[in-house]
C-alpha cells in the first residue's frame, strides 16, 4: 500500500472544505427559500430537502435548517469532479402550486396562517396562488406572487452562495474549520 503523504492530507482537507462550502451554501439556500416562501400550516416551509447526487442520500429537517440537515458528501476525486453535487427540492405534494408554477385549488383549512399575510382580497380565476386582487374577498397570501422565481433568478441565490463561501473561508482562515 502506498504511503500516505502530507500532500494527500492537504488534498483531503481541501476537498472537505469544498464539501462543507457546498453544504453550507445548500443550507443557506434552503433557509432562504423557506423564508421567502408561503407559510400557512408550515408544511411547505418545512419540506425543503437536499440530496446528494453521489449516493442519493437525502437530508431533511425543519426550518431553520441546519448543516446537519444536508447530507455528507464523498471526498473521492470522481465525486469532487461532478458538476452537480447536491439537489434541493421541496417534497410537499403541492410544491409547484406553492411556487406559483401551476394553478391550484385553495380551500380554507380551518385555521389561520402561521406566516405573515402579505396580501388579502379576491383570488382570481387564474388559480395561481399569489394572484390575489384587491377587493372584499377573504383570500390571503403569505408570500408575494412569483416569490420562487424572484429568489432563484433575481440575484438572491447568488447572495446565498457568496455568504456560504465567505463563512467557510473565514473559518478556515481563522484555523477553526470543522466538518460540521
Amino acid at each position, binding site marked *: 500500500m502506498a504511503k500516505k503523504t502530507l500532500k494527500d492530507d492537504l488534498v483531503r482537507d481541501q476537498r472537505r472544505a469544498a464539501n462543507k462550502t457546498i453544504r453550507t451554501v445548500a443550507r443557506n439556500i434552503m433557509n432562504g427559500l423557506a423564508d421567502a416562501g408561503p407559510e400557512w400550516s408550515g408544511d411547505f416551509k418545512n419540506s425543503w430537502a437536499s440530496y446528494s447526487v453521489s449516493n442519493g442520500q437525502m437530508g431533511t429537517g425543519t426550518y431553520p435548517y441546519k448543516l446537519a440537515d444536508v447530507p455528507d458528501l464523498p471526498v473521492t476525486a470522481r465525486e469532487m469532479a461532478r458538476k452537480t453535487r447536491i439537489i434541493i427540492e421541496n417534497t410537499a405534494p403541492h410544491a409547484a402550486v406553492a411556487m406559483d408554477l401551476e394553478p391550484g385549488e385553495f380551500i380554507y383549512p380551518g385555521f389561520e396562517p402561521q406566516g405573515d399575510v402579505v396580501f388579502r382580497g379576491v383570488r382570481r380565476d387564474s388559480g395561481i396562488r399569489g394572484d390575489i386582487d384587491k377587493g372584499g374577498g377573504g383570500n390571503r397570501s403569505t408570500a408575494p*406572487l412569483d416569490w420562487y*422565481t*424572484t*429568489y432563484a433568478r433575481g*440575484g438572491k441565490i447568488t447572495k446565498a452562495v457568496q455568504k456560504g463561501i465567505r463563512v467557510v473561508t473565514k473559518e478556515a482562515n481563522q484555523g477553526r474549520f470543522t466538518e460540521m
Partner: protein
Amino acid sequence: MNYQGIRAKFESPLLSAYNSLSPSVPVYFDNVFATGKEADDEFIFVNIQFGVTTEATLTTSSNYVQGVVVVRAYAKKGVGPARSQALINTAFTTLQTINATGKPGSGIYVRTGSIDGPSFGTGSTDQESRLAFTPYFISRIETDFTAQVIS
C-alpha cells in the same frame, strides 16, 4: 434608484406589442386594479419583481439592479394551445427586442438572461375539482434581468 423607470423599460414595450395586435389584448401589471380580468376571454398578466439592488462585492456602484419578469398569457380553455402560444410568443419577441437594444449614453440600460418556458397549464379537468371551472389555458415565460441607471 429609478425602479419605476426600470419597470417601464419592460412594461411599455409589452403594452405596445399587445395593443398593436388585432384585436388588441388587455395587459395587466402589478398593483393595477384588475377586477375586469374575468370578463376578458384572454389577457396578459405581467409580474416584475426586484431581487437585489446592490452588488457591493463587485462594484461600489449601487446601480446594479437584478430582478425577474414573469409573463402569463391567459387564453380560452378547451380550444387547443395555438392561441395561447401566439399570445406568449408576442412577449417572447418583445423581450428579445429589449435585449437587442444598444446601451444608451444616459438613462436606463437593461439586459435579460435566458428566457425560460413557455410552460402551459390548465389545472385539473376533474369535474369534482374546482380547478375544472378555471376558464383559462395559461402559458408562462420568465426571465431574469439586470438594470443600470446611467447618468
